[in-house]
């Protein structure tokens, strides 16, 4: 009985202490919080507020009735996604391309980052800029650069072929060349960006590790294998988990522009996004198009959770959450 007030006193003390701690923590993190604020607001406005749109795929949207007033129609809007073979082809293409982009893209970017790390400080800026440049070029422009090479009448490749007396190739009419063209173009365009991310995390590695390795007689390759790569592991895992979340999104700019939207190439170039665009051109149904996006993002979300779960099981330090 006597212990009660005492307990209360200690509890209060502890609470006070905690509150003071929290205040201090808040004070200390205030500048950082403020710095993050524009980003937080941006994400809130553009990613959280529009979440109410998630009801649209389940509605028969009518302008006069509005978002809330339109009738609920269950899964009817999703039907067009699951009937018909074209959508299957598009879904297959989307997933396969993204898997290749993730694996090959990551490998190329890591290799470039490792190489950049070995290049002297002076040159690295130049290489970085050159590698990053394609990332900022729009796909429309890239499409015309590619056309410069593959144009059937005046393209570089066909000119070379005809110079050697060979038959020109109908690049834009032949499906078989396009998986390679698309993969190469996408990796060329994106590698600089990812490489810079990996390079930046390599910069954070303690230099002493390399010095120590060197005194122990480890060569450059050995250092890459035993220090750089393990240090990059967590970034690689995070980047991969994040890209898996987007595995159902085909980059519309890439898949629409690069093959110049040539229908003959659809078997190799059609992705969910381009298919939905085509299907909705005439009908323009808001509910159906948002059903497609809903499908893409929900599946992506589930995949992120699943991948993260696996990562956590195997190596809990590198899991995203």
């Amino acid at each position: 009985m006597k212990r009660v007030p005492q307990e209360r006193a200690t509890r209060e003390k502890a609470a006070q202490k905690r509150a003071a701690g929290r205040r201090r923590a808040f004070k200390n993190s205030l500048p950082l919080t403020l710095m993050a604020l524009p980003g937080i607001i941006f994400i809130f406005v553009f990613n959280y507020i529009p979440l109410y749109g998630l009801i649209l795929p389940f509605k028969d949207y009518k302008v006069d009735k509005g978002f809330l007033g339109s009738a609920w129609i269950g899964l009817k809007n999703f039907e067009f996604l699951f009937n018909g073979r074209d959508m299957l082809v598009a879904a297959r293409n989307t997933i396969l391309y993204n898997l290749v982009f993730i694996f090959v893209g990551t490998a190329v970017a890591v290799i470039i980052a490792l190489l950049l790390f070995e290049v002297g400080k002076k040159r690295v800026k130049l290489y970085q800029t050159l590698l990053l440049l394609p990332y900022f070029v729009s796909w429309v422009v890239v499409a015309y650069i590619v056309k410069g090479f593959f144009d059937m009448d005046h393209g570089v490749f066909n000119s070379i072929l005809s110079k050697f007396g060979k038959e020109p190739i109908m690049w834009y009419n032949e499906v078989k060349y396009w998986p390679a063209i698309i993969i190469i173009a996408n990796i060329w365009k994106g590698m600089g960006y990812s490489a810079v991310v990996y390079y930046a995390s390599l910069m954070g590695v303690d230099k002493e590790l390399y010095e120590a390795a060197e005194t122990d007689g480890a060569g450059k390759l050995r250092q890459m294998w035993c220090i750089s790569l393990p240090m990059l592991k967590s970034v690689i895992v995070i980047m991969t988990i994040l890209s898996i979340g987007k595995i159902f999104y085909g980059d519309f700019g890439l898949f629409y522009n690069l093959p110049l939207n040539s229908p003959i190439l659809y078997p190799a170039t059609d992705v969910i996004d381009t298919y939905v665009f085509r299907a909705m051109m005439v009908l323009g149904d808001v509910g159906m198009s948002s059903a497609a996006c809903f499908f893409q993002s929900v599946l992506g979300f589930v995949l992120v959770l699943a991948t993260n779960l696996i990562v956590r099981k195997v190596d809990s330090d590198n899991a995203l959450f």
Partner: protein
Amino acid sequence: MKAKKIMSGMLAVTMSAALFSGCAQKKTEEDNEVVWYMPKAIENMGDQKLVEDEVNKLLADKVDVKLKMRLIDAGSYDEKMNVIISSGEEFDICFTTSWTNSYLKNIQRNAFMDISAVLEEYGKAILEKSDARVLEALKSDGKLFAIPSQIPIVVPNSRVIKADLAQKYNFDYKNAQDIKSLEPFLEQIKTNEPGITPILVTGNSAELAWALSDRYNDDSIPGLRYDQETDEFIKYYDIPEVQDYYRTINDYYKKGYIAKDAMSKTDYMSEAKSGKYAVLNGTGAYTEDGSKSAATYGFGCAETNLGSGAITTPGVMTAMNAISTNCKKPEKAIQLLNAIWEDPQISNLLAYGIEGIHYTVDTSREDIFSVIPNSGKEQTWALWHNFIGPLWDQWDSPWNRVEALEEMKAANDTAETSEVFGFIFDSEPVKTEFAQVSAVIEEIKPVLITGSMPDFDEYMSVANKKLTDAKLDVLLEEANRQLDEWRKTK
């Protein structure tokens, strides 16, 4: 606690800021101001305020309405209107057609207001000057969702040949109705004119003009056509004439009469203007002398008239104005349009701009009032008369001569009407199939139009398989069911 309060305070501020920026309606609009969305006729549109002020001066004497145009680049009009309408923005009038800001799409989602009653009350001049057949055809269940402009409701279908080439090879183009009869000429061009591609078609263009029998008309449903003889909808790609046509085009492609990369070309007009093609599509003139095409393409054109078909429902939907379902003052909107339809002074001011600034009066035409609009860089204002509405009130100008207008009117009056004129397909019950069939058509059309397939029969069988998979049959059945229903109401 304080920290929490600050945080929640900040959150509240950002949220409300976001809400304001996202959803705030423009409350500054005056009560009598009518907002009208319209695609620009030219890229270099200046002087909007100037023209609007002049129009509003004229309007002030008649009605208590002020005009506020919102002009959008023609190229992005469709996309922008789609966003404006589906987000439920409040506006009054918008331009709507079968080819941009789709009328059918919009009535499907209840985006437009039924104006039959308001029009009866405030739109006397509009009703008087409109084609009664067209008004009647656009009505469904007694409801009217748009005001159709005065337009040529049957557009002449024509093909043109670069005049110098037609002359050089002495080609009898007037009698070359069938595309097969073009072959000798194409052959000559191919062998003798190295810089010239015999036929111009692009992946997104129309077919090279040809004359499909009049019995097949109404192309409002993807993949289907109405057959007047059997009085029902049938599958377009099963029509023997159609197959035969595409087979010939494929043959021409293989023979090199069509550019190898025709399918990936998208800008028909700039290709046409390059002058590097021998046979092109006509631009829809009433006189068969090629003058309109020549003016458009910039070189002499020899024109082959291929007839003009019957009046169809999609054919009268090429220029209309609708009132938004979110419009708060439909009577003001109709009053505005009525004033424009009533007074040629206002409609011509809106279309041509202001005298001395945007056009000059042409004194060489003595008997009629005629104007010469500025052109090229000098042109800073233009709206199309038929986008606004009253085309027949257009002042004579190089855009349209009075004679041409008379001819259009006469063609309208004498044109035959399709048996299904007035039938509007409701895609709602079959929208899954409609979307899937549309996707397949978007895919096969560019290939068929340019003939870019290695083997015609093989391609056709794949295409037909795709259409079947997309349930074209369901669409066909529904179309004929609705057609039966519609006939009963007539």
